[in-house]
């Protein structure tokens, strides 16, 4: 199929999209732009509206209000059969009574292709997804991962301009999942097809996406590259949903510093006024460990003394629970490398000093109750 839009140009544009199920609003004023060739992940907890958004893009469940432009064309009210996309579902949705070949050829029929052309294309696709000899089998004779690859081959058989993946890996074993996500990403890069994937698995989104769209309660919380999303979360929801995040009740004091108890910390720049109660947040792996007494010798003002309550060995690092009465009942969780633990001779019950690096400590609004 001709791809008019050159790579990097705007391909899919969603403007002010709303979706209502009765009085429940599943999507609230969603606007989003996706570029040609991009791999986009919709990420969010279940019920956040990510699948609803995908289905609106496909035309499977039409939005209540708003516009969807694809490749410069307004497709807002078109049925799926008049749009240009291939889709892969979590359930594979392979036709059980047709062989693998017939499944892949399903969309190639009635398109003016000759039988031999179809056969050539089918074997090309089977090679592409790495299952060249499985064409004559039935879906039930393949493993889950193999079936999902066939579903992928079927979806891209007609060279659609847009590939939609609805939780394609969720039904698979953890190992297969990691393997297949790599393959899908490779394939997408090779074909250059604009791709939107829905997932609730943050690791999957971080590993595969060019840009991640984090959604919650029918709104987009943040759009950005995996590193942006991870390093600079726009709000506490994103910070908490992706990766782990320590949260400490605090207040903004002079110079924008954050006070926890009597102690104040320097943090990343923010726009809060003095006196505003905020949540101070830092990721477990960003906490730097020091030996006890480091506070006095170094005089670093972002350091604080803690007790090492509990250590848990997680293979490549130690997860530690740290306690200081200033944090109230909440503990801090820190991930320390095995080297650091050995070097500092850390063990449960000991006192130590930790540093909360200024450029990794963030301040967020306190979320409203119930939100």
């Amino acid at each position, binding site marked *: 199929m001709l791809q008019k839009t050159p790579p990097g140009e705007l391909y899919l544009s969603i403007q002010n999209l709303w979706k209502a199920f009765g009085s429940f609003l599943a999507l609230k004023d969603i606007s989003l732009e996706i570029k040609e060739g991009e791999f986009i992940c919709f990420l969010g907890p279940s019920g956040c509206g990510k699948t609803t958004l995908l289905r609106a893009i496909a035309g499977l469940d039409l939005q209540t209000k708003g516009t969807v432009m694809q490749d410069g064309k307004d497709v*807002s009210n078109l049925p*799926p*059969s008049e749009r240009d996309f291939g889709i892969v*579902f979590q359930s594979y*949705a392979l036709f059980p*009574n047709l062989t693998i070949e017939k499944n892949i050829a399903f969309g190639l029929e009635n398109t003016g292709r000759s039988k031999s052309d179809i056969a050539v294309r089918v074997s090309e696709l089977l090679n592409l997804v790495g299952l060249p000899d499985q064409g004559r089998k039935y879906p039930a004779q393949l493993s889950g991962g193999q079936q999902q690859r066939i579903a992928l081959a079927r979806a891209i058989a007609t060279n659609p301009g847009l590939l939609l993946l609805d939780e394609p890996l969720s039904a698979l074993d953890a190992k297969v999942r990691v393997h297949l996500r790599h393959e899908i990403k490779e394939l997408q890069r090779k074909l250059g097809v604009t791709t939107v994937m829905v997932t609730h698995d943050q690791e999957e989104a971080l590993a595969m996406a060019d840009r991640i769209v984090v959604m919650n309660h029918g709104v987009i919380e943040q759009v950005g590259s995996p590193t942006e999303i991870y390093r600079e979360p726009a709000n506490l929801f994103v910070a908490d949903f992706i990766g782990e995040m320590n949260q400490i009740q605090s207040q903004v004091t002079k110079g924008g510093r954050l006070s926890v108890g009597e102690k104040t910390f320097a943090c990343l720049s923010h726009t809060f006024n003095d006196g505003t109660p905020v949540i101070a947040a830092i990721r477990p792996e960003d906490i730097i460990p020091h030996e006890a007494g480091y506070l006095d010798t170094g005089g670093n003002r972002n350091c604080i003394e803690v007790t090492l309550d509990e250590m848990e060995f997680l293979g490549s690092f130690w997860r530690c629970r740290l306690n200081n009465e200033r944090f109230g009942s909440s503990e801090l969780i820190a991930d320390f490398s095995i080297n650091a633990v050995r070097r500092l001779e850390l063990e449960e019950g000991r006192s130590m000093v930790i540093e909360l690096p200024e450029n990794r400590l963030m301040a967020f609004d306190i979320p409203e109750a119930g939100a």
Partner: protein
Amino acid sequence: MSTMSTNQDTLPAGPDIRPRLSRDDILMRGSMMVIALYLIVTLALPLYTMLSKSFSTYRVELSQYEFQVSDEAGVFDGTILTADELNRQLGVYSDTDLTTGSDGRLPVTGFFPDFSFRSPVMYQMRNTTEAGRFLVGSTLNEGTDWVELDSNTFRRVQMRPVQARGLGNFINYFSTPALFNSIKNSLWISVVSTIVTVTLAFWFAYALNRSCMRFKGAFRLIAMAPILVPSLLPGIALVYLFGNQGMIKELLFGASIYGPIGIVIGSVFFTFPHAFLIISTALAISDARLYEAAVSLRSTPWRTFWTVTIPGARYGLISAAFVVFNLVITDFGLPKVIGGQFNVLAVDIYKQVIGQQNFEMGAVVSVVLVIPAILAFGIDRMVQSKQVALLSARSVPYQATPNPKTDRIFLIYCSLIGLFIVGLLAVCQFAALIKFWPYDLSLSLKNYQFNKMDGGGWGSYFNSIKLAFLTAVIGTTVVFFGAYLVEKSNGFKTGRSIFQMFAMLPMAIPGMVLGLSYIFFFNNPSNPFNAIYGTMAILVICTVTHFYTVSHLTAVTALKQMDKEFESVSASLKQPTMKLFARVTVPVCLPAVLDISIYLFVNAMTTVSAVVFLYSPKTTLASIAVLNMDDAGDIAPAAAMGMMIFYTNAAARIVHLIASKGILARTQAWRSR
């Protein structure tokens, strides 16, 4: 952070997006409307016609007729007499005489005591209102002009009733003990039959599911046999066993089989497979872990039975009870054959319509019969919807452990039930093959010379096969396609739920009621569908509609197991939905499709109730022939024809079994890994 949405909690004003329908959407909605229209024409409209008929009253209004009488010379003196006034003086017609049916007609000569048809006296008669009508011979006179008639013609004058709407028919019904006693009778035999059948079927199903008894397969087969015969066949067998010249009538100690006893025994026979199937399903899905827990808690078997087994099967038991109740109260064939003087509702409809030609009263009885049937149906649906969540994925199937003593008791019990079922069938076959019970017991095939009997002869047998075949083919197509459309089309929610409602309705409508409503609706000359009245087509349509619900539910169950994204995938690949339907949906659902077709075939072979009002001399049916031959006293040929139906259905089942095995082996290869 390129895009941030503003958090608003209200939809903006302005029109919603209106979907542009694809060609497939239009095709599917159009087809759904066609099938919905089919259900409206074959179900909703006839029922409505019947309902309105039940509220139609007919009364001869005497105030709207006026007369003048001449002298012997034929000269009128201008005196005008009203029929009302004359009746008041002479008391010719009482109030009940004037209340009549749509065909009612009353002569007028009674108003003139001096009337003689040879007299030269002339009469003039007219209607006082435009609504008035009277017949002269077969000519209908409307309008208010005077009509002059000589004495000889005047005796052929008949007043015609005026139609009104009201509760008159119902008042009439409930003030006639002979009629409303049937309500009590119907409820009574239905309740008794239900209790007996459900109890017997429960222990039978229990033995088959929970014991290590032998010959389970054979018993299962025997239990299903009554489905293959018309409900009136056990009645014929009972006549041979316990009738006036019955083989073992002494066992009744003088009680008569003609009446409630016969109806209950026969009902147990023909409802047994239905109850057995439902209860067996309920027992089969019980969870073994509960029994292990009971054993480890040292519960006695009796206590375990009441605290684990019965609660686990209770929805099945309730459902079976209502299904049996519904079958018995709506059944017509059996009480017709063996009911004697014991009137029940379904037979009353027949008697009113066929015997007395009182269609309005037939409609009233129908309305009365529909009420318990709809109630039983509604409760059953409610109970079944609760059954779903009972079985969790982690349940472990119960494995019976051998217990020689109880296994032997169960074997004896099941053998007795089996003997009852096989026995009744064997009696019918025996009766069909002997010359003349009880005087000449030599074997002969003379009872198979159906052409010499009432009922349509062998022709009706072949008509039945034709009906069954057409019903199976057409019905399966319509039902499955309809179920597909309602399950898999996009949007159009209201239309789909209305369709679902229509599809569920036939189950609640007794066959007699459906058949009668067809008379009212299709036998109306002004109905454009009038042409199909008296043809095979109306029999097929009626039978498909009559058995629509169970077929529809079977189809829906199969379709619900299909991945709901197939249609999405097909649309994304820009393939027509009908290609998906033909290449994937139908092949995958083929087992269900075959089940629906055999269900329709068997029921079309055995049904009596709906079609008894609709057959014509050219379209007599085997099941009706059984009824009519029995009515005419040709009981042995009736039994012979009944057994022909049995063998035909049994053969159809076997063919179905072989065919589906063959077809499934070819088309369902994908099922095996």
